[in-house]
């Protein structure tokens, strides 16, 4: 398991290539990799967004993320997990979060990657403060439930 908080722009594809390249012990064992990449949009709730600050609670964030991944490892057969979350000042089109799960079978990879994302969204102490095109600054109030279909 690798969990990173990242204060700079990161390239999810490069992170995946590097991580998998170093995980020589997994080679030939994983049949399935389930990945989610969250990216900052230039709109939210009907408004254009120019930038965003990602605040977090140092220490607790890492602790909660680790617990979420451990819970996933307890529920599904996973070979490894990579989780990277951006912190600090971000711009539209920046990667916010990367979750990747390697397992022998695809059901486990799909279920576990989604479980980690949903629990991260509801439990990991991060907060988004948006700067709109108008210059207005506002805190994002609530994350949506990712299991419900969008209207």
């Amino acid at each position: 398991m690798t969990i990173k908080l990242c204060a700079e722009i990161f390239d999810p594809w490069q992170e995946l290539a590097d991580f998998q390249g170093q995980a020589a012990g997994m080679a030939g064992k994983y049949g399935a990799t389930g990945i989610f990449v969250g990216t900052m949009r230039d709109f939210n709730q009907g408004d254009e967004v120019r930038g965003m600050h990602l605040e977090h609670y140092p220490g607790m964030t890492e602790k909660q993320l680790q617990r979420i991944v451990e819970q996933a490892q307890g529920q599904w057969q996973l070979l490894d997990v990579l989780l990277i979350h951006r912190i600090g000042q971000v711009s539209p089109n920046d990667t916010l979060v990367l979750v990747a799960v390697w397992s022998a079978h695809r059901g486990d990879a799909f279920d576990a990657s989604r479980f980690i994302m949903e629990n991260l969204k509801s439990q990991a102490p991060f907060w988004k403060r948006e700067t709109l095109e108008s210059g207005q600054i506002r805190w994002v109030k609530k994350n949506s439930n990712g299991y419900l279909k969008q209207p």
Partner: protein
Amino acid sequence: MSIKVLYFASLKDRVGRSGDELNIEAPLSVLEVWQRVNPNMNIPDTLLAAVNMEYVGLEAEVNDGDDVAFFPPVTGG
């Protein structure tokens, strides 16, 4: 006996401080901690609380040396 209180995100803006130090004589509940440091503000409905980086309910006990954190719903990911 002393405990540390932390505020995050919009709650930090609202209380106007990032934290408080509180001297206590005996263990308190999380709710009592809030009432001591914010006597003029009702605890917000949607507030989350953590003691030593673990989520707790408002009835949880706070002891000497503990860190108590208050924050709004999380919005990461």
